[in-house]
């Protein structure tokens, strides 16, 4: 059974480690905040200039001066700090954020990612996505395995204009999880969603990949 949005977020939360500073993209990645294991200290960065992002405010407590990168009203927590956009992206570009969890339109087997424009459609802009994929220490993509036309989003090569090249370390889809091996060595399937078979993943994946030994046996 393919993972639901909530299950995808829950799976992505397993990428977190105690003490991590993390930037979460818009959409499913935002939900990961709900699955931070109890007792684990994870600090969320918002690229519009905040470290230590709190939950949404209670109704009536919204502050127009306090939003996240998705322009949603949020709150501060005791450890929060604010800074300029230049300082925020210095933090991102300089490799000080441990992990970014992002959505994508396409990911290629060499770690290329496309998630900002579709030629012929109105382009809204890349926002901070190119900075995040180029700067953050580890980039994990969380997405549906296939697009709405049923075509694989895990590809030999991206067809859409790229956001970054060779930057993705792991791909978590509703069907499976792949590691992108270093130095262009390709993908390794390391995990299947409950009830999903190797054959189903093979049928629905355009990219080439190897299967992790343990998984092969299973």
């Amino acid at each position, binding site marked *: 059974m393919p993972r639901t949005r909530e299950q995808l977020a829950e799976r992505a939360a397993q990428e977190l480690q105690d003490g991590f500073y993390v930037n979460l993209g818009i959409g499913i990645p*935002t939900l990961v905040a709900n699955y931070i294991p109890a007792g684990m200290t994870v600090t969320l960065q918002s690229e519009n*200039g905040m470290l230590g992002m709190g939950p949404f405010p209670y109704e009536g407590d919204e502050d127009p001066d306090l939003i996240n990168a998705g*322009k949603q009203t949020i709150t501060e927590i005791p450890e929060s700090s604010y800074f300029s956009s*230049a300082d925020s992206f210095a933090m991102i570009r300089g490799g000080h954020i441990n992990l970014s969890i992002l959505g994508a339109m396409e990911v290629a087997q060499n770690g*290329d990612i496309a998630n900002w424009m579709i030629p012929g459609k109105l382009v809204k802009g890349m926002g901070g996505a190119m900075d995040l994929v180029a700067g953050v220490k580890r980039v994990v993509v969380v997405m549906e395995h296939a697009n709405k036309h049923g075509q694989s989003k895990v590809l030999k090569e991206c067809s859409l204009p790229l956001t970054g090249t060779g930057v993705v370390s792991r791909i978590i889809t509703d069907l499976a999880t792949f590691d992108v091996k270093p130095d262009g060595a390709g993908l390794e399937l390391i995990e299947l969603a409950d009830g999903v078979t190797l054959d189903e993943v093979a049928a629905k994946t355009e990219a080439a990949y190897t299967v992790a030994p343990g998984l092969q046996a299973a």
Partner: protein
Amino acid sequence: MGKIYADVTSALEGLTFDGMTVMSGGFGLCGIPENLIAALRDSGVKGLTVISNNAGVDGFGLGQLLGTRQIAKMISSYVGENKEFERQYLAGELELEFNPQGTLAERIRAGGAGIPAFFTATGVGTLVAEGKEVRNFNGRDYVMETGLVADLSIVKAWKADERGNLVFRKTARNFNPMMATAGKVTVVEVEEIVPVGSLDPDHIHTPGVYVDRLVQTVSEKRIEQRTVRQRAAGAAAGSEV
């Protein structure tokens, strides 16, 4: 040597000319100089190149200058919330240069800091790097980006003292501090002007040297995405309203 102006109209007097480049602070509708944008619209200045992370929404923020077709070109990272922008862009009436958000922020910081160009890994191998120099440092490719300056920067801060020392509030800081440094002239609107000596010198975000003109305004401060959680619920995330 007074920096304080009575209203936004006089604060922009003599500073605007057709074809000029204007930097405008803010992220989304958060921390935008909304009253100075309105004054810029009322000035009737045309053919603007506007450097701003976003383009406002229809009828508010920079959307006001789009409605009147005063903007010829935008340099931004994301312009998703503006239908009039979309219309003008698709009709070829508006030029648009997309910069990655961090590259945009750093280009502005560089412009203000006297740095004409710098290298960044952001955008290497993408459309953003096309036509730009790419160079390898320590085994990794980086693209050269240039500094940005403007004829005028309009900035929103929370408080200022009479010498122009500025303090920003929460995430309304965003692009404002760098833009204050990168304008040939910088005009700032604030919610409160306090006497010199009221601000702790260790807490000043933008020193007065960057501020040419100062005006106290009342801001509407619209919220773009009002998201809340239920008082009963304990979950970290909530629902979009």
